[in-house]
């Protein structure tokens, strides 16, 4: 599903540098990415999503080499095949939960809204326990409810890859476990691949593999 080879990235010369010689994530796998703050976890996720372009090396998602794609193609791939979950939820405050969940369909012409989407929306809301909150605005929700809504937004397009950037980072311990359960349950239902950044080692149990960013922070071997 994901193949990274000799990935080399830095924001500008002489600053932070990320080097990943090899990383393979099979379809349906659960990969946790751990590491201290500033170790490049989010940067790696952004490169996998095609938001950032590496200085060198190759990243391919579902056999598509991201560096060979145009910006437009990368955007299309991102919105149709990748679900993104953010630490800060990033729900639009002026949209109801329902409209937030349908946001990918509103901001891109690639996706087409149809009855299947409506059905999927209702099922997702039901399964994640936010069916009763659909007409509320984000500021009327608890932190846990917001993150469950954000998970639903990431899954509404039935993506094959979920990239979650510390999705439990803003949650209390009870909500952490609940949200993680919802996320893993949904990933399993969708047979999706999950790459989740976290600095919480208590959550690593269910993951197939763990990538410790300390190994890759500092640049390629000379």
């Amino acid at each position, binding site marked *: 599903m994901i193949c990274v080879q000799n990935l080399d990235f830095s924001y500008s010369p002489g600053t932070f540098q990320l080097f990943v010689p090899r990383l393979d994530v099979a379809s349906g796998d659960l990969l946790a990415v751990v590491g201290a703050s500033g170790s490049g976890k989010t940067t790696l996720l952004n490169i996998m999503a095609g938001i950032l372009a590496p200085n060198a090396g190759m990243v391919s998602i579902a056999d598509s080499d991201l560096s060979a794609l145009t910006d437009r193609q990368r*955007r*299309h791939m991102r919105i149709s095949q990748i679900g993104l979950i*953010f630490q800060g939820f*990033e729900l639009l405050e*002026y949209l109801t939960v329902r409209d937030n969940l349908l946001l990918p369909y509103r*901001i*891109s012409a690639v996706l087409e809204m149809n009855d299947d989407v409506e059905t999927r929306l209702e099922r997702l809301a039901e399964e994640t326990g936010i069916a009763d909150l659909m007409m509320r605005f984000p500021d009327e929700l608890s932190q846990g409810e917001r993150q469950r809504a954000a998970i639903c937004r990431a899954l509404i397009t039935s993506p094959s890859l979920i990239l979650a950037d510390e999705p439990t980072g803003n949650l209390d311990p009870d909500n952490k476990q609940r949200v993680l359960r919802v996320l893993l349950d949904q990933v399993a239902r969708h047979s999706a691949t999950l790459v989740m950044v976290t600095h919480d080692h208590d959550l690593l149990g269910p993951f197939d593999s763990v990538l410790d960013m300390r190994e890759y922070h500092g640049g390629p071997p000379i």
Partner: protein
Amino acid sequence: MKSIIFLALRYLAYYRWKTGVLVAAISVILFLPLSLEYVLDHGTERLRARAQATPLVLGAPGSAIELMLSTLYFESGNLAPLKYALIDEIHETMLGQAIPLQVKYRVGDFPVVGTSPDYFDFRDLKITNGRRLALAGEAVLGALSAKELGISPGDSVITTPDTVFDVTGTYPLKLKVVGLLQPTGTQDDYAVFVDVKTSWIIGGTGHGHEDLARPEASGSVLKRNGKDLVANASVAAFREVTPDNMADFHFHGGVADFPLSAIIVVPRDVKAGVLLEGRYQNPNSSVRVVLPSVVIDNLLNTVLIVRQYVLAAITFVGVATLATVALVFSLSIQLRRSEITTMMRIGAAPMRIGVILGTEILLVLAASVFVAGIAMVVVNAWGDALFGWILMAGNL
């Protein structure tokens, strides 16, 4: 496009107060110059029309504008009076028709216009209910003064005394309303018309009281010397002209000396007009002649200059407001950077996000144009009423 409009509308609806303030600010900026232009154009047209329909006006020496306001708009200023003898003088020249005007008193907020029946023909004022003036003590009301006072023929109105504390001032006179005029859209709609003799009675030049020659009046008589009688203050003056007391009303002094505020002169023809104008253009004359159209044109030229200044000020304020609105949009986009970033990370094209933000701005502008348009439609539909209200407000 549907999704773009949906998102833009959701944003504007959620921040409805901000949206409302922006729409209101832009609407005002659009509406102000347009409405000002309309009101001024409409007002100018009406001022010119009334002035052009009034060939010549004679008045006492003084402000030509004050004379115009008194003659055309029944503003009772501080004009010195003319003598009624001038009416006969003009008629004797055979050069035109002279219509007396005595504008000094009021019924509440409405001017009492003392004139002759010729005024109604001159202004083409038609009675819609009742009849014309026939006797002293009668009044014919303009359409709007009748409406405002809630008066019908057969009812009465009472003139407003100058001051409650001045025992030598004018006393209220009860006037019997005998007719109502059709609306004309001019200042005539706001007037209470009476015969010029009635206006003199209101002013105290003419009055009525019990016949002191009768035996029952002897208690008030202090001295009899042939036909001359001297009475004390117990003689009560009538405050209403009725068929019973009409014969007791009389004027002291000669009619020729009775006051008028102005005389409208309708020359027989152009040549007669020129002759009449020349006749009273002597700077040493106790009468001045003015051509209303010239006076009003001069006044409007001043208004035109003021209009340019006002429009320039509005334009300046408009530019400042639009700059502020642009700043608000710009700051709003800055504040929404996180939202924009989220949409881009999910997969939105920068162009599409730009279109969403642009649509929000366009919707605000469209709503502002709509609101300003509705306001202009209202001003257009109620233009006559609005202008009448402005004129009436000027009289209050």
